[in-house]
């Protein structure tokens, strides 16, 4: 993992996260753990079960994320990575897309992958 380019790792993570969100939302459970925290439009949620319950109960069935920007930085000695995303969210049946920003703090797993420790999501209203 340490030999991999952090920009490439964060890009791969972002693509995986949003394609899972858009096609198999319940599959997001594999990306969070018990200690994970999500703040979704100001609502604080802790732990993979509660987080997945929140994400799968959002009031839309189909959506598609279009990513505009991805920035990443190493977060410190624990080999975490901060990933800062902005883009658009198209809900099925809605005319206009919603702009959003999202911040992930990824932590490494023993298997050489990453899980989401921190997740903060905000819509960007005009």
């Amino acid at each position: 993992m340490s030999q991999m380019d952090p920009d490439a790792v964060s890009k791969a993570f972002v693509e995986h996260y949003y394609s899972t969100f858009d096609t198999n939302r319940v599959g997001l459970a594999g990306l969070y753990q018990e200690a994970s925290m999500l703040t979704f439009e100001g609502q604080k949620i802790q732990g993979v079960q509660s987080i997945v319950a929140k994400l799968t109960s959002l009031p839309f069935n189909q959506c598609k994320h279009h990513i505009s920007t991805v920035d990443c930085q190493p977060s410190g000695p624990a080999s975490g990575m901060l990933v800062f995303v902005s883009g658009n969210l198209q809900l099925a049946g809605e005319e206009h897309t919603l702009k959003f920003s999202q911040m992930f703090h990824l932590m490494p797993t023993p298997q050489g992958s990453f899980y989401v420790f921190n997740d903060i999501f905000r819509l960007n209203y005009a």
Partner: protein
Amino acid sequence: MFIFLFSFAKNIFNFILEISTMAETNKGMEEEVASAFVNHYYHLFDNDRSSLSTLYNATSLLTFEGQKIYGVEDISNKLKQLPFDQCRHSISTVDSQPSSIAGGCGGIIVFVSGSLQLHGEDHPLRFSQTFHLIPVLQGSFFVQNEMFRLNYG
């Protein structure tokens, strides 16, 4: 000039006092720290941009509209050279979370959205910004990570 220095020193002192008082309680204090930090950061940015250097150190990282900048000197230079003299930030949302489990490094992630009015410009610019604050021994925090993006319509 003296009055200016005094009010500036008072700001820093109040910030550190507020933070070190909270650092003792530790549990769930990230909201208060985030709020105090955000007030302090944008006040400095809008009134005394060169003093932002007090918030960074040699290990700090800034990504500004995709450009990566390392260390307090280069970060300070970048912020000083931004192509506007006067600006005013209006903050819409502040979210925060601890960046490690309890007993870990005590870092705090702060996620901000708002708008930025440049002097002389008609319309404000919308932005989002992420900070990762790390505590220092004196009870204050420094900015280890920072990422800034304008949110275009």
